[in-house]
C-alpha cells in the first residue's frame, strides 16, 4: 500500500504494509539510518523521532499513523538553532561512548528544551527516559544544561 510521508520537510512515497513500523520505513525504505533499532517494543528509545514535534517511539508506530504528520529525525536536528546547540553541547561534554543511543537521546533532549528551555534535574529525569547501556547519563545531563545555557552542577540530593 502506498503512503506519503513528510520526513524532515521532504515528501516520500513508500509502498509498504500499513502496520510496518515507521522505524523500518525510515531505515530500510527511505535510507535514513540515524534512528536506531534497540528493542522493538518502545522501551529503550534508540528509535526516537518527533511526530509533529512530539517524542515518538518509531519502532512501535505504524507507518499508516504517520501520514499527514511531520516526521523529524536526527538527520534534521541540526536544521534548528536549538538542535545545533544541543549537538555542540553533546560534543563539548564528550557524551558518547558507543554512541548508539545518542540519536534518540538528542531527539528526547530537543523536545525537552523546546518545551522547557531551563529544565531542572527533575525535569531532565522525567523527560530523559531513554536507555544508555554505556552509562553516559551524567554527561547527557551536563550536555542538556550546557545547551540550555545553565550551570552544569548536578543538584540532586547527595
Amino acid at each position, binding site marked *: 500500500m502506498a503512503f506519503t510521508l513528510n520526513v524532515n520537510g521532504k515528501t516520500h512515497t513508500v509502498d*509498504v*504494509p500499513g502496520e*510496518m*513500523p515507521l522505524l*523500518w520505513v525510515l531505515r*530500510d525504505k527511505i535510507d*535514513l*539510518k*540515524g*534512528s*536506531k*533499532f*534497540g*528493542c*522493538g*517494543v518502545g*522501551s*529503550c528509545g534508540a528509535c526516537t523521532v518527533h511526530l509533529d514535534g512530539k517524542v515518538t517511539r518509531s519502532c512501535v508506530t505504524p507507518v499508516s499513523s504517520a501520514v499527514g504528520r511531520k516526521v523529524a*529525525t*536526527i*538527520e534534521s*536536528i*541540526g536544521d534548528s538553532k536549538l538542535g*545545533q546547540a*544541543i*549537538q*555542540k553541547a*553533546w*560534543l563539548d561534554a*564528550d*557524551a*558518547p*561512548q*558507543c*554512541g*548508539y*543511543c*545518542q*540519536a534518540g537521546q*538528542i531527539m528526547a533532549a530537543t523536545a525537552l528544551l523546546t518545551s522547557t528551555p531551563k529544565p531542572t534535574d527533575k525535569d531532565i*529525569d*522525567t523527560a*530523559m*527516559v*531513554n*536507555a*544508555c*547501556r*554505556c*552509562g*553516559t*547519563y*551524567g*554527561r*547527557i*545531563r551536563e550536555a542538556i544544561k550546557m545547551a540550555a545555557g545553565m550551570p552544569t552542577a*548536578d543538584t*540532586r*540530593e*547527595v
Partner: protein
Amino acid sequence: MAHDMIPNTAKARKIDASRRGFLKISAAAGGGLLLSMTVACATPGDTTGAVTKLGATKPAAPLQKLNIYVSLASDGTIRIMGKNPEIGQGIKTMLPMLVAEEMDADWSKVQIEQADFDPAFGAQFAGGSLATPMNWEPLRQVGGATRLVLLQAAAQKWGVPVSELSTGPSVVKHAASNRTVSYGDLAEIAAMLPEPDKTALAAVKLKDPKDYRIIGKSVKQWDSPKIVRGVPIFGIDVTVPGMKYAHYVKCPVFGGKVKSANLDAAKAMPGVTDAFIVRQSGDDIMGLLDGVAVVGDDWWSCKEAAKKLNVVWDEGAGASYSTASFDSQAADFAKGAPQSNLHKKGDPDAAMASAAQKLEASYSYPFLTHAPLEPQNCTAHVKADGTVEIWAPTQNPGSGLGLVTGALGVDKSKVTIHLIRCGGGFGRRLSNDYMVEAAAISKQAGNIPVKLLWTREDDVQHDPYRPGGYHNFKAGLDKQGNLSVLTNHFVSFGRNGKTLSSANLTPTEFPAEYIPNARNDQSLIDANLPTGPMRAPGSNAICFAYQSFLDEVALAAGKDPLDFRLELLANPSSAGPARGNRPTFSPERMTAVLKSVAERSGFASRGSLPKGTGMGIAFYYSHSGHFAHVAKVKVEQSGKLTVQKVWVVGDVGSQIINPTNAVNQCEGAVIDGVSQLYQKITFDKGRTQQSNFFDMPILRMTDAPQVDIHFHITDNAPTGLGEPALPPVLPAVCNAIYAATGKRIRNLPLTAADLRWA
C-alpha cells in the same frame, strides 16, 4: 609481535586511493592486490572524509602511505589507522594519539580511519582491557619511527645530516640555517624512503612524558560529530549493492535442531524472497547453530514472515535446564564435600576449630546477559568466486574468521573482514555467532550479500551469559579479632571437572594470600550452557561475594571496614598470581587507592549520616587495575533505594592517555555495576525466561548516581580501563545498604530484597 607492525617492504608506494573514494586497495594475505567495491556512506570506514566540526573535510591532496599506520598528504593531512575494534571504549581515538605524539604531529591535522582486520596490524581485538598495555610501547615506536623517516626526508631535501634536525608540531626544523619544512611538504620524499625495520623500531628514542602535547590531553571521540548527526556508522547501518535482509530463527533451547518448518508459508509473505533451513556447523555452542533463515527486501517483513514458519524443534538435552534445579543442586552441593580443591594454605580446619569467633554466609548471583544496545548484526557476502567479504561489528574478528572458515570450508586468505563500529560490546561481541550465521545465510541464499539482524529477544535469549554462582563462606577470627581463616565452597557451572567459560574462580582469590589459613573449594553443576566473558569476567560477581563477606567479617571483628581491609593488605604472605608481563596485584597500590577514596568521599565522617543513609567501601584488582570505591545510598522506610553517589579511585599506572575518555569509561562502569544489581537471567525448560528490557532492565537516567572519578598516578606502565572500575561497584553499594538499613545483601538481584526499615 609488536615489532612486526611495520613490515620492511618495497620502496615504491602507490597513492593510497581509499581516501579518494570508491576503490579500496589493500594487500591481500596471499600477496596479491585485492580490489573490492565499497560504497560511500555504506561502509563507515571513514571513506566519506573526516569530520572535525559539524561539517565534513577531506584532504585536498592525495595521501602518500608512509607505513601501514600513517599516510601523509602534501597539505599536511595525516591519516592514522585505528587498528582495534571500536565498541565505545574510545580506542579508535586513543591508539592514534600514541602514534601522533611520537611522530610529533599537529593533532589538528590528524584524521583517523578504521583499519580492516589484517594480520599486518598484529592483534586486533577489544577485550581484557588489553589495548593499552599491548600497544602503549609499540604504537609510540611506530610514531617515533615515522618521525625518523620525516627527519630523513628533510635531511635529503636540504642535504644536511639528520643529527642537526629537530621536529615541532608537524614540522622539521634545521636550527643552523633557520629553516623549517612542514610534514606535508615532505610527504613525497618520505613515501619513497624505506620504512624502519624491527631494529630501527626498537631503537626509537621515545619522548620524555613531560614533553607530551597529545598524550594526557582530553581528546574527544573521533566519531562523535557523526554520532550527533545520525551518520550511518554502525554495523546495523551497513548497506552494500544488491543486499538482502535476513532474520534467523533459532531454537529457544540452546543447540536444539530443526525438525521441520513451513518454509513455503514464509516465502509467500510480502517482501520475502527466500526461506531455508541452515544446519549447525561444528560443536561450538556460540558458533553456527541450527535455524531457519528468512531473506527479503526489508528486515521487518522477514521478521514478520518468520511467524508463519511453525518450526518444530528437536530440543535435545538442554531442555532439562532450569534455574530452580540449579538452585536446588547448589544447595545440595553446599551441604556435602566439594568436588575439588582449588587452593589451600595453612591448616584451615584446625584454625576453624580453634577460632574464637566463627561466621558463615552464603552468597549467590544470577546469570546475566550483555545486552549491548545495538542488537547483533552482520553483513556478509559469500561470493560465487569463492571469496568472502564481511562487515562486522565485532570485538574479536579472529575468532569470527575461524568460525566462518570452519563453516564454509574456505581458506582464511579468501576472507576479508571490515571492522565496523559496534553499538556497545561488554564482551558480547567476542563471540561471533552472528557473523558465521550471516556468512552461512549469504552462501545458502545464492551467494548474495545479506544483512542479518537479530531482534532484542534473540539477543537476550542467545547470549554467552555471565554465569551465575554460589559462594559458601566460613571465616574464623582469633581472640584479637584478626581473620585467621577463610574458606569458600564455590558452586559454579561446568562439565567434566572443567568450568564453563568465565565460570571460574581465581584459586588464590583475595584474601587467601593475606591470612594464615585459607581454602577455596569448588563443585560444578553439570550444564552445557552458552557462557562467556562479560566486562571484568572472573571478577565482576566474585568481587561482590568476597568484598561483601569481608564486610561481614570486619563487623564481626568489631573493626572499621576500611581499617580491616588496610590491616589485611598490610600482611601479604606472597605475591599475587603472575599475569604475563603485566602488573600483578600490589597491596601497596591497593592501600593507596583505598585511603584516597576514603578521603575523597568523607568515609570517616559517615557516622553522622541519618538512619537510612549509609556508605560502603570495597576494592578489587582486575585487568591490571587497582580500584577502590565508596558508595553512598539512601533507603527510605518504604524500602525505596537510591544510589546517590559513587566515588572511584583507580591506579592504572603512570599515564592517563586520554583523560576525558578514561573518566567516561569509569563513569560507565559505575552505571553498569548499579544496573547489574537489578538484572537477572533465569532458565526454565532450557529456555531463557527474560526477553526484552521490560524484564531485563537497563538502568535509566533517574536512577543513575552521581560519580566522582580520580586516578592515582604511580610509576607503573599504563594499563587498561574498560573493565577494572566495575567490580567494586556492587559490593560498595551493598555494603552501603547494610550501613543504611542493617540488611545484608547476600543474593542478587536486589529486586528480591526487602529493604524496608522502621
